[in-house]
């Protein structure tokens, strides 16, 4: 809501500068987001919270200022008149020129109208135009401008109809009939659904209640007679209609946030006075005022002990009563506290805590002390899943990977997991239309933003599968293991075994060691991929990304990736390491070189070694693989190292050699020949 400083000063007499007024409003809960300059001086842009529709007006803002400090912000005669409501002396007279029927009193608790038999179609007064412009509205003619002016001043939206265009010159408030249509003021033909509230004449809709008028009954240069509507509409009904039609207006904004039902006739009177002041034209005698939904504001009790407890500071009862009273409430002292009846413009006051807030707000939160909670001291901490996530992230960071954070709402991607992604019903754009079911598409996006041919990226985050949300960790890497350096030139290149090594490190850190099994995931190279398995359960995928797919996605070639499901991993038992005593005696290293058919898996060879050297074998590792010259077709040569150690003595050469012989014998059954 934009309001000029000078207009506010017409309602409250004050020496406060625009900045000081802005600060006061902000500390009252009505944040002034900006102070702008206009032909009329400072304009305050006030952000009114959705519970305080009453502050969407000059009157409402002035009321808050006066309540906060009545000495500094003294109500002017105009403000007192606005509060009394400008009687014209004919309010009790029924209006003969028209009639109003309300078929839906629950949606339209009050509807009032006045009529002018003369319509002076001229420009509004300069001062009025200046204020409208400063407040961000466009002057049109004296009728429309005055309705807008009264809305800004008092918060009551008004609508002027061309009375001669209303069939039978009467108003019916009702919900839409099936298929009913009307062209609204913005020139768009709209069809209504049957729960939408419409203002109609004897035959057809002439306005969408609380939202926008119809084009056909709009006030024009040809208009001779005017019917002016001032009503109170049920907020949710207006909101639903406005949303369904996607038609937010200044009027709907206010009606959705509660307009003072007691201010309905006041606004008609204010319009009459301003119109006559500008044009000399007077209204027809009488008001048509239907008020079937009158509701008495309910008194709310507030206990002194309660406000002192909740605010954490003591506010004397007299001060609390004065605060509530200054906000227009009827306040009575009761046993242990106060009873306050909120004014008709404060629909947000319903329970004790609402009053506690008003008492605290006017007492000033700057006076509130700071205390740390006493009483119970619960144990803080991480959840199991978060802790696992932190450990997995740590493992990747230790390996030198760079963490990225990518969007979970995105376009479908060829790297999506092989299940249909969940779609947004109301996507922002094709790029923001599905929920990721894999972290790999986001990593591919991030890969495009890397300025080096080598990169090591990972992300930890949620993915959304049809049955559940899961936390995953995924990595994407390519290029050289180490950055190029003048001392060593090019380092080794990333390959599938880099991914495997990384996963083994992550598994070790999570105390859940992975195994790798043959898999068939179309996102990966058909022969260079594996499913990652822990405790017999599939928990992830890894491998080289499909070359075809990488090419189609215009990514750099030779990309290696993995994705692990941490939620599944968490549910698997953790193999917490236990201390194993180690020997104080020196170890002996024995290497073997064997020629073996290529289709014998290394894992099988290693398993045989471990079996046959059990007891003395400390470590075994593959240090060389060779095929080609000197090796039979279909075979390769493996260099395998073993360290042997005895718990209680130094091994002799003979003992070590004996183990080596046992190992070679065991391997012979796999077709392995010593070279």
């Amino acid at each position, binding site marked *: 809501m934009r309001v000029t400083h000078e207009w506010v000063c017409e309602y409250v007499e004050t020496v406060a500068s625009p900045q000081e007024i802005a600060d006061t409003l902000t*500390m*009252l*809960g009505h*944040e002034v987001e900006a102070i702008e300059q206009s032909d009329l001086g400072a304009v305050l842009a006030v952000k009114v919270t*959705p*519970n305080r529709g009453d502050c969407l007006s000059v009157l409402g803002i002035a009321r808050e200022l006066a309540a906060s400090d009545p000495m500094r912000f003294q109500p002017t005669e105009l403000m007192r008149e606005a509060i009394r409501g400008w009687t014209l002396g004919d309010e009790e007279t029924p209006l003969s020129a028209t009639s109003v029927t309300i078929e839906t009193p629950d949606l339209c608790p009050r509807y009032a109208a006045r009529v002018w038999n003369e319509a002076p179609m001229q420009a509004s007064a300069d001062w009025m135009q200046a204020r409208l412009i400063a407040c961000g509205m466009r002057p049109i003619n004296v009728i429309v401008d005055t309705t807008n002016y009264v809305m800004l001043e008092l918060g009551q939206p008004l609508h002027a109809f061309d009375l001669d265009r209303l069939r039978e010159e009467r108003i019916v408030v009702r919900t839409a009939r099936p298929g009913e249509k009307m062209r609204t003021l913005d020139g768009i033909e709209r069809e209504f659904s049957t729960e939408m509230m419409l203002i109609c004449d004897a035959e057809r809709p002439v306005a969408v209640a609380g939202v926008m008028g119809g084009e056909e009954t709009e006030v024009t240069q040809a208009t001779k007679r005017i019917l002016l509507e001032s009503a109170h509409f049920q907020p949710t009904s207006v*909101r639903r209609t406005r949303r369904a039609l996607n038609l937010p207006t200044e009027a709907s904004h206010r009606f959705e*946030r509660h307009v003072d039902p007691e201010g309905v006739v006041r606004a008609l009177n204010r319009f009459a006075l301003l119109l006559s002041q500008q044009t000399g034209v007077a209204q027809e005698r009488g008001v048509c005022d239907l008020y079937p939904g009158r509701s008495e504001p309910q008194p709310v009790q507030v206990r002194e002990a309660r406000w002192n*407890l*909740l*605010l954490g*500071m003591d506010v004397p009862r007299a001060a609390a009563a004065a605060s509530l009273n200054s906000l227009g409430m009827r306040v009575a002292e009761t046993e242990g506290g106060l009873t306050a009846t909120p004014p008709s413009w404060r629909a947000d006051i319903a*329970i004790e*805590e609402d009053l*506690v807030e008003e008492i605290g*707000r006017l007492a000033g*939160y700057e006076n*509130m*002390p*700071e*205390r*740390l*909670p006493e*009483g*119970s001291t*619960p144990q*803080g*901490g*991480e*959840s199991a*899943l*978060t802790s696992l996530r932190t450990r997995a*992230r740590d493992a*990747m960071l*230790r*390996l030198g*990977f760079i*963490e*990225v*954070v990518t*969007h*979970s*709402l995105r376009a479908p991607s060829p790297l999506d997991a092989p299940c249909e992604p*969940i779609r*947004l*019903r109301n*996507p*922002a754009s094709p790029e*923001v239309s599905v*929920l990721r079911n894999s972290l790999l598409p986001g990593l591919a996006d*991030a890969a495009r*933003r890397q*300025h080096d041919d080598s990169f090591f990226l990972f992300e930890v985050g*949620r993915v*959304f599968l049809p049955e559940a*949300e899961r936390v995953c960790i995924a990595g994407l890497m390519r290029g050289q293991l180490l*950055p*190029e*350096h*003048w001392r060593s030139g090019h380092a080794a290149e990333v390959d599938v075994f880099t991914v495997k090594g990384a996963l083994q490190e992550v598994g070790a850190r999570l105390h859940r060691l992975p195994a790798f099994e043959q898999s068939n995931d179309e996102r990966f190279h058909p022969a260079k991929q594996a499913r990652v398995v822990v405790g017999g359960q599939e928990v992830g995928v890894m491998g080289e990304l499909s070359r075809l797919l990488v090419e189609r996605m215009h990514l750099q070639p030779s990309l290696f990736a993995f994705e692990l499901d941490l939620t599944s991993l968490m549910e698997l038992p953790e193999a917490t390491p236990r201390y194993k005593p180690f020997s104080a005696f020196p170890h002996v290293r024995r290497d073997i070189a064997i020629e073996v058919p290529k289709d014998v898996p290394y894992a099988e060879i290693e398993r045989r070694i471990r079996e046959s050297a059990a007891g003395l074998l400390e470590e075994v590792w593959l240090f060389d693989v060779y095929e080609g010259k000197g090796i039979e077709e279909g075979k390769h040569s493996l260099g395998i190292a073993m360290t042997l150690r005895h718990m209680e003595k130094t091994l002799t050469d003979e003992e070590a050699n004996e183990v080596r012989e046992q190992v070679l014998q065991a391997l012979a059954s796999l077709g392995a020949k010593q070279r």
Partner: protein
Amino acid sequence: MNPIEELRAKAEEEIEQAEQLDALRAVEIRYLGKSGEFTALLRTVGTLSPEKRPAFGKAVNEAKEQLQSLVEARRSQLELIEERRASERERIDLTMPGRRFRVGIRHPITEAEERIKAALIGLGFEFFEGPELEEAKYNFEALNYPPDHPAMDDQDTFYVDDHRLMRTQCTAIQGRVFEQKQPPLRVFTVGRCYRNEAVDRTHGHTFHQVDAFMVDEGINMAHLKGTLRAFASAMFGADTRVRFRPDYFPFVEPGVDYSISCPFCAGAGCAVCKGTAWIELGGAGLIHPNILRAHDIDTERWTGWAFGLGVERIPMMQYQIDDLRLFYDNDSRFLEQFRA
């Protein structure tokens, strides 16, 4: 001068003048060796009267010992000089670049999240995780949003179907926590939220949020302010102060937004606080009694508060980042700046 003293003086001079280790060694042998000058001198003892002999022998040995330590001292000196001379030939150009390691780097959002977690766990809060694809009731109804209330306008929502949406606020965990836990409790979460907003420098359709709340006996606004002060001190420095301003959120009553005193200019006014000395961080308030009552929590006995804040704000302030989109672009030139 007696012959011992004469010989000692001569040897001492030669030791000092030895410029090379082998020259020193030669001097050592010449004077102190088995067939050196002092041994020769000792042999002349027979020419002395028997009563003078012990004194003579003692004097010779003392001179030898003294010279031996002079030799050792001179040798250390010469070794050092020699080592320096040899090392100098190995001098390298240390302006050449150091070895480049691959070093893991946390994303700045993670860095902020971890600091927040540490601060809140330190204050006795327990981490709780709720889904990002949330049931509509936890995001709105359970948080005391009346149906079709304008408060929802601030939170344009991505829906998946009639009942499920992308949570617009981490406060959505509250209903789930109350279903699982009884007061007293102190709980928090950090995670992603989503709003169907146009993307620009300061708005994204995705952002990260912290939501913390506690319920206990006699909990009030002063405890909220005190806890926020403790949290802000842990995050931004011991002198950080907290300011409340009334605000409205359906799930709190009274509701406030809170600001911290600008930690970057100590109140002098700077670019981060836009000259106001205060930085608005988030919303807070006492948990609305309707929420507690909906879970059969006796509001006469138990009261609580909640606060929230945006995670991105923290690295944006800390590193003076002016565009929210940078966090999600993951440009290497961005990520490598922080070494978090």
